[in-house]
């Protein structure tokens, strides 16, 4: 690990100002991903600005029925929160399907959303990687890519976003509230992360010094019944091969609204809007679900090792939504 300075921000504005002055600085939340990457010499900050005491650590109900989650809330506290568990069970489940309790106790909501890909080549500075070192090439496309993306990739990068939480938040139409050198703004969760294109080094749309302060979940009454299904190579403590966050609003057997997001298949949490559009306004059955899932995956571009993710994602979408429907009281 390279030497660095450590400063504890006194408030959010101070944190933003400290970072804005230092191009090689980074915010430190729980550190579970950043410290890991610093040990690997992938992250090389010269200054760490500790923001755990300046990002909110509360979960509060909003007047419109939504919920605001402070960016400093730990993953464990988020998953254990009664409001979240009751109103947005898919969010609690997504968190609980990621990492381990001892990591979730350290990791924050803000940090979770900004964790970087676990692509093996990104994490290994002795190999080429466009995300880590633009222009060096992508080792994964011709290399070991079993875990990597099938949707939203580019000729320069096929990394997946590893966050489970982000998948559930994408399904819920969450919004991220930030404060930065240019003031505050709200970013839809589905627009926080970006596809790699020709600039895979940029995971998200945040500017340098922009700090996530909160995540807002809009009211979504039918999310009280929602599910996160994660398929992975171990039964626990492993990243997703494919994951599905789903919620469905059925009225008289017709789909009034449905939310489907996928993890493990794309460089960002993948909101399955195409499948949702096909399902809305009709009945829900296995055949329609299958067609909707296949439409969502029609543009998938698999690599040598990960073509299985197409049928796996299709089957996972069908099963998760069917289970939700069949479990209906």
């Amino acid at each position: 690990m390279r030497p660095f300075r450590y400063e504890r921000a006194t408030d959010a504005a101070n944190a933003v100002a400290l970072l804005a002055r230092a191009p090689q600085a980074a915010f430190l939340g729980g550190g579970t991903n950043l410290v890991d990457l610093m040990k690997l010499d992938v992250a090389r900050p010269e200054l760490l600005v500790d923001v755990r005491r300046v990002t909110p650590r509360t979960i509060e109900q909003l007047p419109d029925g939504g919920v605001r989650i402070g960016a400093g809330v730990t993953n464990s506290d988020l998953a254990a929160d009664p409001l979240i568990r009751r109103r947005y069970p898919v969010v609690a489940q997504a968190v609980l399907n990621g990492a381990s309790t001892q990591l979730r106790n350290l990791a924050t909501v803000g940090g979770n959303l900004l964790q970087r890909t676990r692509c093996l080549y990104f994490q290994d500075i002795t190999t080429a990687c466009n995300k880590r070192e633009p222009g060096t090439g992508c080792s994964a496309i011709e290399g070991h890519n079993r875990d990597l993306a099938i949707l939203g990739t580019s000729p320069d990068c096929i990394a997946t976003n590893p966050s489970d939480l982000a998948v559930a938040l994408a399904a819920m139409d969450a919004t991220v509230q930030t404060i930065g050198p240019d003031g505050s703004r709200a970013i839809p969760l589905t627009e926080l992360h970006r596809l790699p294109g020709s600039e895979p080094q940029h995971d998200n749309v945040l500017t340098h010094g922009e700090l996530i302060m909160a995540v807002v979940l809009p009211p979504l009454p039918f999310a009280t019944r929602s599910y996160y299904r994660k398929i992975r190579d171990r039964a626990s403590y492993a990243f997703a091969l494919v994951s599905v966050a789903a919620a469905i609003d059925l009225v008289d057997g017709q789909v009034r609204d449905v939310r489907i997001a996928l993890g493990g298949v794309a460089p960002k949490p993948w909101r399955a809007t195409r499948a949702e559009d096909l399902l809305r306004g009709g009945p829900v059955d296995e055949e329609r679900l299958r067609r909707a899932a296949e439409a969502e995956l029609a543009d998938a571009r698999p690599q040598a090792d990960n073509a299985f993710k197409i049928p796996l994602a299709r089957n996972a979408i069908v099963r998760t939504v069917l289970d939700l429907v069949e479990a209906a009281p």
Partner: protein
Amino acid sequence: MSTIAARVMGQALDRVEGADKVRGLAPYAFEHPVPEPAYLSAVRSTVAAGQITGIDCSRASAQSGVLAVLTYLNAPRVGTDDGELRILQSDQVAFRGQFVAAVIAETSEIARHAAGLVRVDYRPRPHDVELADAHGPDQLRVPQQIWPLFPIETDKGDVDAGLASAAIQLDETYRTPWYHHNPLEPHTTIACWTTEGVTLYVSTQYPAGVQHTVAEAFRLEPAQVRVRSPHVGGGFGAKLPRHSDVILAVMAAQLVAGRPVRFALTRHQMFSQTGYRSPTIQRVRLGADTDGRLVAVAHESVEQTSRLREFAEHATRATPTMYATPHLRTRQRLAALDLPSPTIMRAPGESTGLFALESALDELAIACGVDPVELRVRNEPAEHPLDGLPFSSRGLVGCLREGARRFGWQPRDATPRARRDNGWLVGTGMAASTYPAMQLPGTKVTIRATPDGRHIVSLAAVDIGTGTRTALAQVAADALRVDLDRVELRLGDTAYPPAAQEGGSAGISSWGATICAGADELRRRLSTEYGDTVPADGLEVTVDMPENQYLGRYVMHSFGAQFAEVRVHEETGEIRVPRQLGVYAVGRVVNPKTARSQLIGGMTMGLSMALHEASVLDPRYGHVVNHDLASYHISSNADVGAVEAYWIEEDDPYVNPMGTKGIGEIGIVGAAAAIANAVHHATGVRVRELPITCDKLLP
């Protein structure tokens, strides 16, 4: 020979060091308190083959707190021919990840950072790292240096004619991937070089081996090298051979003589520095009559080794021991590649070989319409199928019957894909297992009797988690015919007499047989010289391990039967193993508590082998790319269901005075095949290449 009477042996005693381990107070190598330690961090090559054209240490050396930088230009010359250990001796690079430099510094943080600042330039040459069928016969050779206890290749009868004439014929190829041992404790060393010699704390399965190797490499007398290894955080074979990390630590210690040097490999470095299990490509051909009686067995295995040190997994090793057949042939081939050296990993040969053979037996059972348990019973040999010698004891059929009963094997509809439970396909499978019962040479024991009735038993054996400290004390108590509290067992230090390695499931057998001989000698001297009274200044005897007079007259093996239940999700291919059950014939069980732990540990490692583990080589770079515990999956708690291990009573008077046959390895043998066979029963999909992952079972 008759076995010694068991009074303390057979008791399910708690581990004697348990209270230290549960508090974290039992010291592992890195943890020994030493004054003013310096820290070592290694630099590894980033090419798989080639030549170093330049090394720039200036930035590293300039760091405050850096004591020295080691490269081939200033490293001491070592006196060993072992290519794996000859690090920093020239500008040549033999594999990606080989040590090319190292930094010694005041703190671990400084050492690691400075190691990253050492710039090494290379002239790479094309490398050959892929084990593939494409390796023609000219690139493959018959191994020369594998365990001499077992023939490398075997022939009996006319296999080709036997196969051709068989009513039922099977010809399939099975593949197992690279595996890394990944003990939870990384390979660690503290080395202190003084004018008297070198003192080492090493995480090793073989202190005497480290002592000998370091003495030879640094041109010291063995007495000048002291190796201490009181607690070892797992080994599984990875800490049995000597690796270059110990050499590097001693080189560093010599450079900063007088200061202890602490060196811990990182988890990433372990994937290139501590050995691994070679991948195998195994072709199994079986010929049988319509009742499933074997007519011919042919088993060939292609494996890899490095260019520096030969090691063959020898996957065909167990095949001649398993089943009666008039025609038998085993073949072994090795490709020497630009890779690190493979090594012993829990049940080398058996664990990989019986995945193939026992999968093939399952396929044969289906082809013949014979129950898989019954098929194995039908092919039970009266004597060793290859050399015709009797077995000292052979409990396979007993294990099969007892296992089938306990597991509830029958009634079983053999039809694949016929049982469903709430979206999950359910199946059962079984496999046989075996492991040789061995004693390894090189053990001496000193027993000192004191007038107050204590017996101090000393030898440089180690406890790597197997329960040696407890079980060997139980052996000693019975050998000496005293209560356990009269025995003081001292181990883990080359200040004591040399002891054979902890490996080959031979620890208790080798060390225990020597203790029995020492107890006999102590009694003889007390009786003939001291009138059966311990003299005031005590009496001490030192003995060598006795030869087993029955070697060459009997074949000595443990056997077992493995059963598994699996569930495979119909739509996603996810696999769960809610139940594993094994029954073993392993001779006398010294400590049922620790023995059971070893058996279930082996079975669970077999589960891990079946479903999770594979080291993935990127042939372009020449290294294993999933070199951490997030991407090299070993089974987690959630992957493991009920694991039951039992044993049948077995009195074997030929193996050694205790009647023990070794227990550390047989649990893994056949476990992966039992799961693969159960997966076939559940899904109808035969997976012949491990690991069995969901993508292979997707509808």
